[in-house]
């Protein structure tokens, strides 16, 4: 009996005693009229993946900033971080999705706020006391929570979905009201969303869920708890039910495939059988995007899978050893199901067999920060969670300070200050941004806000760049995320696809080194291949390719000062590229990778700021990058 009362207190999250009334003020704003342009004229930057104090682990890690602080920060305001540091972005973002974990939404905060005398579960009591001891204890408690989660041993009081439903509803309703108050169409879009933290053991199958609609529709549902699930089917059912009930729209974005031990992009269905057309269609319809880069590593490509790609392996070190919760090592045969380029290839193979491509997705970057602060700039990076907000030790701490690296698997310096989502939309509004995501007209960046255009057609010529090539791109071709129009007898051109590729540097970041097109295809024998083409780079006159490789752009980074200069590279790179190896019988995809010149990592900025002496193995400079969604080709 006693236990039931305890659970009730915990799960309700708050009695009047604890959190008082919360922000349930209603929307008072007037809806601004937003005009949509005929085609996307500008790119909008945002973060589709951010956690606040309402996330069970974020609060445990010491996050005390609610969704309101997250929204104020993303829209350009200064806020004070959980560890007391003033924080402000160099430029506002255009949109934000607060994606707190549905599982145990608000639970840690509820545990923290509960009267101690009412907690009888010894494990919960231990965590309660640890959290109240301060940051170190809090990190320890959270590490133990994640451990318990990995082994299915969370105390029922914290994790029972049925009993947690009420607390979830309360926290969700409050969060919706706050998000709605900060949605300013035309200026700043605040989406409703949550994270579906699906896991098998410690294998990461997480998805972020984003709604297109307003509070009238979204408030008709609560976020879905995945704790007893192994595969995403129940999430897709939930999404279907939402759409049927409200007439609204919702999408899901898988993330950290790099920590899934091969389960994110499998060649088979969950039962080990071949993927059917129906399964493929269902996956592609619900999951139009994948998060390709974030703080917990980069999932584009792995050197094991792409030995001929000299730039594969950005942000893979440390993250490629074990699964998310460090419960299983990652074996080489797992890599293929864990990285995006390979998934795009697998998609072609499955489409060859079934007629449907389950992995026809676009790509974005996002932070997955658990600080409520969407930072992806190396010189202004607030880390994965409050335990690694700026401080002199974070470069050499383990990923969860105080917990040995053998337990958490990674050193914190292996975190990337990455990434952001770029969306080519017709206005800054929920509807326009969401629709652009559905048609994959998006790209991901590891932080710099570089502008990238990519159009595919059959008759683009170098001369097109002299006139209004964006208009031409839309009229005679398809933008990133699209499928080349079928090539018929009357199609102009020489029979090979041609692409307009254009990249412009971030006005306040480094110059560009090169633009590459990554091609994947399936040959007649049914085997998948890939090739990276350098299509345009800076100082092409001097940097002549040698043995198929373009000489390195150079390096102006002074790691002792954490500086670089834009005396190398180019501010913009553009070309029209035609595939010299095109075979009309082969199914293929093409995507663009833009590389920046070398610049300092956040660790280098820390080293200079805090006068640190660091192990030479620690990465102090890097080439940041942007990845576009692919353009696909289907044989007629």
């Amino acid at each position, binding site marked *: 009996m006693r236990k039931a*009362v305890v*659970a009730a207190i915990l799960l309700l999250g708050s009695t009047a005693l604890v959190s008082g009334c*919360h*922000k349930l003020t209603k929307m008072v704003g007037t809806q601004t009229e937003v005009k949509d342009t005929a085609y996307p004229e500008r790119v909008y930057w945002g973060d589709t993946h951010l956690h606040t104090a309402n996330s069970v682990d974020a609060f445990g890690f010491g996050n005390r900033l609610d969704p309101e602080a997250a929204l104020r920060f993303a829209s350009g305001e200064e806020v004070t971080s959980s560890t007391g540091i003033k924080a402000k972005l160099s430029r506002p973002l255009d949109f934000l999705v607060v994606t707190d974990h549905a599982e145990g939404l608000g639970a840690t905060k509820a545990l923290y706020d509960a009267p*101690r005398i009412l907690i009888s579960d010894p494990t919960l009591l231990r965590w309660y006391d640890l959290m109240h001891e301060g940051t170190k204890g809090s990190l320890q408690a959270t590490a133990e929570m994640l451990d318990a989660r990995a082994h299915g041993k969370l105390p029922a009081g914290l994790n029972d979905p049925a009993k947690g439903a*009420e607390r979830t509803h309360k926290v969700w309703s409050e969060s919706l009201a706050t998000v709605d108050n900060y949605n300013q169409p035309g200026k700043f879009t605040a989406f409703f969303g949550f994270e579906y933290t699906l896991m098998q053991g410690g294998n990461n199958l997480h998805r972020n869920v984003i709604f297109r609609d307003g509070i009238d529709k979204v408030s008709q549902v609560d976020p879905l708890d995945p704790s007893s699930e192994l595969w995403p089917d129940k999430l897709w059912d939930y999404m279907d039910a939402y759409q049927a009930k409200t007439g609204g729209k919702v999408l899901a974005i898988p993330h950290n495939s790099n920590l899934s031990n091969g389960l994110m992009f499998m060649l088979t269905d969950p039962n080990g059988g071949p993927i059917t057309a129906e399964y493929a269609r269902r996956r592609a319809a619900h999951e139009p995007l994948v998060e390709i880069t974030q703080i917990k590593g980069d999932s584009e490509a792995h050197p094991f899978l792409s030995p001929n790609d000299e730039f594969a392996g950005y942000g893979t070190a440390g993250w490629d050893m074990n699964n998310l919760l460090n419960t299983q090592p990652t074996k080489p045969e797992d890599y293929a199901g864990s990285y995006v380029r390979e998934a795009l290839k697998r998609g072609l193979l499955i489409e060859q067999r079934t007629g449907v491509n389950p992995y026809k997705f676009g790509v974005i970057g996002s932070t997955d920060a658990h600080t409520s602060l969407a930072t992806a700039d190396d010189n202004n990076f607030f880390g994965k969670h409050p335990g690694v907000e700026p401080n002199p030790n974070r470069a050499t701490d383990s990923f969860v300070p105080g917990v040995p690296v053998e337990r958490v698997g990674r050193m914190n310096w292996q975190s990337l200050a990455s990434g952001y989502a770029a969306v080519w939309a017709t206005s800054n509004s929920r509807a326009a941004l969401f629709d652009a995501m559905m048609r994959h007209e998006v790209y991901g960046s590891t932080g710099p806000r570089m502008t990238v255009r990519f159009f595919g057609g059959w008759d683009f010529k170098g001369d097109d760049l002299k006139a209004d090539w964006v208009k031409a791109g839309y009229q005679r071709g398809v933008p990133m995320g699209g499928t080349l129009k079928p090539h018929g007898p009357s199609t102009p051109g020489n029979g090979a696809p041609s692409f307009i590729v254009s990249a412009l540097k971030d*006005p306040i970041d480094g110059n560009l080194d090169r633009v590459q097109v990554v091609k994947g295809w399936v040959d007649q024998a049914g085997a998948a291949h890939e090739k990276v083409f350098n299509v345009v780079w800076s100082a092409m006159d001097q940097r002549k390719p040698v043995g198929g490789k373009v000489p390195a752009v150079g390096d102006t980074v002074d790691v002792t000062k954490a500086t670089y200069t834009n005396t190398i590279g180019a501010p913009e790179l*553009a070309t029209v590229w035609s595939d010299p190896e095109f075979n009309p019988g082969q199914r293929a995809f093409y995507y663009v990778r833009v590389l920046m010149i070398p610049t300092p990592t956040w660790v280098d900025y820390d080293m200079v700021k805090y006068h640190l002496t660091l192990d030479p193995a620690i990465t102090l400079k890097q080439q940041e990058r942007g990845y576009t969604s692919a353009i696909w080709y289907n044989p007629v």
Partner: protein
Amino acid sequence: MELKASTRALLKEPLVHFLIAGAAVFWLLSGRAPDLGERRIVVDKAVVGAMVERFYGSFHRLPSPDETDGMIRDYVADQVYYREALRLGLDQGDEVVVRRMRRKLESLAVADAETAEPGDTQLQAMIDRDPARYSDDPRTNFEQVYLGADTPDSRAAANAQLTDLRSGKPINAQPAPLPAKLDSAGASDISGLFGDEFTLALRDQPTGQWQGPIASGLGLHLVRVSARAAPSKPSLATVRQRVTNDWRAAAIAKAQAEAYQQMLGGYDVAIELPK
């Protein structure tokens, strides 16, 4: 009944508000605050009612008589332990208890601000204090031609290109994914595309004629400004949500700070650092 002016003033004090609220809440939890040495535990209707309400809140049914008895037994045991622990001074020097108490008072201090609805006068006053924050950006209509990286060569060529543009001849612009023409662009939009340096330089260009080159974070540009619109005066109707958000954030911060300062004022704090 008339309240004395001093009592009325006292009732307006936020500190008094949350001390009253705190006492009320404490009473809700435990019947009433026990005096040290108090040896009588009363389980009355109010206490049982609160238990039943909490039970109903989570199970959507009333507790059975056995369950109610169990809750009462538990409540009595809680009270016995709690009072014994207080008598023994176990709350003293316990960091967990200290933090919990602090957090309770902190959340009580901001409870009013979180739910208060500001009046139009208050919101208008906020706008008047910082109209620039709430007004639209100044708007500019302009065309731009991108000349590529800012190098001695491109600077040298820029003047001839400017002359060509002024005489209506086409020039070789660099193909960048930048709009050639921007209508009614706000300063923050322009900065997002070109950087702050360009936005500032653009502000000083005369209208009607091609000008430049001016530099951005991307390189060099020639520009022609056709029109400028001063920022519109912000009206409460159009910025109500934003100013309400700001008002609430400020009110919460202020309530928290004031409550602490008032309490702090009642203490002498001596800090003796080790040498």
